Structures are given as C-alpha cells and as structure tokens.
C-alpha cells in the first residue's frame, strides 16, 4: 500500500497537540486575569455634563470632601451634592463661566445635573460609606487622589477580591479618623507607621465582615 500520510505529518501532528494544550491552559488564565475589573474598570473616566474639577476644588482650594458629600458619615451613599450646594459659592464666584452657567440654569429650572456615575457596584453588593468612614478608611484609599483629578477616574478595581483583601487585613488601610478626608495622608511623616490598635481615639478594634451577608442581602 502507498503511504497514507507524508513524512512531515509525524512532526506537525505532535506540534499541533502540544500547542493546543498550551492555548487551553492560557485561556483560563487570560479570562480570570485580563477580564477582571482590575483591567476592565480601573481608569474608567467618563465625560461629565459639567467639567467640574476636583483638582481645583479639593486640591488647590483644599475644600473638605464632606462640604459637598455631606451624608458620607451618616448614610450608605456619599450623596452627590444638590445643585444648591454649588450655588452657595457660585452665586458670586465665577458667575460668568459657561460651565457655571449650566449649573445655574439647571438650578433655576429645578432640574438635576445628570452626572455620569463612575464608581459602580453590582446591585447585589451593599456598600455603606458611613461605617467605613467611622472605621477610619480614607477616601483616597478607594477613590484615589481625587484632589489631583481634573475629571474623576476610577482608581481601584472595586472587585470582590479587592474588597476582601482589606476586609481580611484592614490595618494597613486604616488611619486616624481625623485624617479620613486628608488626601495626602501617608505621604506626611507625622503619621508614619500608624498603628490603629495603639490609637487611643478608637473605641473598638475594626472587625470587617468576611461572611457573605456582610455585603450581600
């Protein structure tokens, strides 16, 4: 009988099988790694209806986060401030700027400004700002150096494992409660090597939930 297969087939067949197995295993890795929020979500920085600059307000002018996001210590949501809050200053400040004009018109019409949401959690994950602030987790820990962002950008993956990393070992991310809104905290030597357990102002040691119903109800 004549040969059915040519010589080279002996080599190619092997090469193909080996490569296929390689691809299979790398696929699992690719999906679990490059399709995680760390790669899909971080850096999300949508265009906002009003070009509000945190860099200017929180950074250069050093306004405290809580001047606008004033429910952060009492509620789950660090609510976006009502337009009225902007008008507190902008009745007099930079009234002629076109961006402020948008705000004023919205306010006069009693319409809200349609901000685009940056930090989005799944609907079945229940996050509460108040308890994190109370525990002394800095704004910057999750939101990054907002004081340096002209336009707000997602800083952390906000993925479950990312949350868990801190819930399992919170102390590296804790700071004195007075410093929660201090964007630069940590860079200053004053608080170098802060030890939460030694902090006299803490009434209790932080025990974040690690069980399911801690976040999923």
């Amino acid at each position, binding site marked *: 009988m004549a040969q059915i297969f040519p010589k080279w087939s002996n080599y190619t067949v092997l090469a193909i099988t080996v490569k296929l197995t390689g691809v299979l295993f790398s696929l699992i890795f690719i999906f679990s790694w490059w399709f995680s929020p760390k790669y899909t979500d971080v850096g999300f920085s949508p265009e906002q209806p009003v070009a509000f600059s945190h860099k200017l307000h929180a950074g250069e002018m050093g306004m405290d986060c809580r001047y606008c996001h004033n429910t952060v210590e009492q509620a789950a949501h660090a609510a976006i401030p009502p337009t009225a809050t902007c008008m507190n200053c902008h009745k007099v400040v930079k009234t002629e700027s076109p961006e402020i004009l948008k705000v004023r018109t919205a306010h006069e019409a009693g319409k809200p400004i349609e901000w685009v949401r940056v930090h989005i959690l799944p609907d079945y994950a229940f996050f509460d700002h108040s308890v994190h602030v109370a525990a002394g987790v800095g704004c910057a820990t999750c939101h990054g150096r907002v004081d340096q962002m002209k336009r707000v950008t997602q800083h952390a993956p906000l993925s479950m494992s990312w949350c868990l990393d801190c819930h399992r070992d919170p102390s590296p991310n804790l700071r004195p409660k007075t410093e929660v809104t201090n964007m630069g905290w940590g860079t200053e030597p004053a608080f170098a090597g802060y030890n939460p357990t030694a902090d006299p102002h803490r009434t209790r040691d932080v025990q974040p939930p690690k069980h*399911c119903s801690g976040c999923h109800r």
Partner: protein
Amino acid sequence: MAGIVPDLPRADHFGLLAEYNTPGELYRACEKVRDAGYSVWDAHCPFPVHNLHKAMGLKPSVIPRIVFAGAMMGAGGGLLMQWWMSSEGGYPLIIAGKPLFSWPAFIPVTFALGILGGVFGSVFGMFALNQLPMYHHPLFGSKRFESVTDDKFFISIVADDPKYDREKTMQLLKETESSSVEFVENN
C-alpha cells in the same frame, strides 16, 4: 521536542521484512533472530502473541511506574487543591459547622483525581513509549504489510542495527519458516 518526536531510521534504506503465516512460525523465527543478537528489530502481529516477549527477549515495561507516579500526583494535587481552596488560602467559609479542612469530605475528589492521574499516565505514557502517533512509517510502503492487522505475522530488522548486513540478515530470515522476505525502502 526532540525527545518526543518519533525517530525514523537514518540508514539509506529501512531494512528487511519477513512474513509468516502462523503465530508459531513467528515465535520460532523471533527466537532465531534474538539468538543471532540483533537489537534494532521488531515483530509485527495482528494480536499480542502469547509469550512472544520471551522469544524476542524484551525487558518488562515501565508503564506501571508511570501510572503509579501519575496516580500519586493526581491524588496529592487534588487533596492539596481542596485544602488550599477551602481554607485561608482560598475562601474560608463556615459550612454546616464543619472544619475548614474536613478531610473525610475531601476523599472522593482526591480519589477521583488520583485515578485520573493514573489513567493519563497509562494512556499517554503508552503513547510516548510507543512513539505514537506515527502516521508515516517505511513499513507502510510494503503491500504485504497491510495484512499485519488481519492474519499475517512479520519480522522487521532495521538497517540501523549494528549487526545488520543486507545479505547475511536476508539469509537468516530465509532460514526461518518465512513465507517471503522483502527489502523495504526508506521512503
């Protein structure tokens, strides 16, 4: 991949192929070839002829050891995986008041993975040792050789064999009860 890739004869031609009609003829022929001290040769038959390894003087197969190794790796890896995933390494959940490392519950998966390791060991070990798949082989060039999977029995002596001498070897094979001896090109 050098190790894995099947190696084909290097000589200018493949060697000689003798045909036999019954297992008995093959058996006795193999004894002769073995006694003649050939090393790079083989017998071909449609089914494993009983005790032929004696006639060919083959050493015991190493398959069982590969299987054992595979089984151990499967089982060990399985147990390790379960321990890691259900304790601090993975996510330590409180399940029905059972400890994080509830080893009795981990036995079935460990066992199954052990079996899997062994199975892979035996199958792919066999493929490796036999250098299969090998889709191209000089013997496939021979018309007679087709019936090796039906009812005929063959001995092939490869030219690479140090003791191989075209005339002498041909003579040796003719002296057996071979129904025919043919010369196989290295195509």
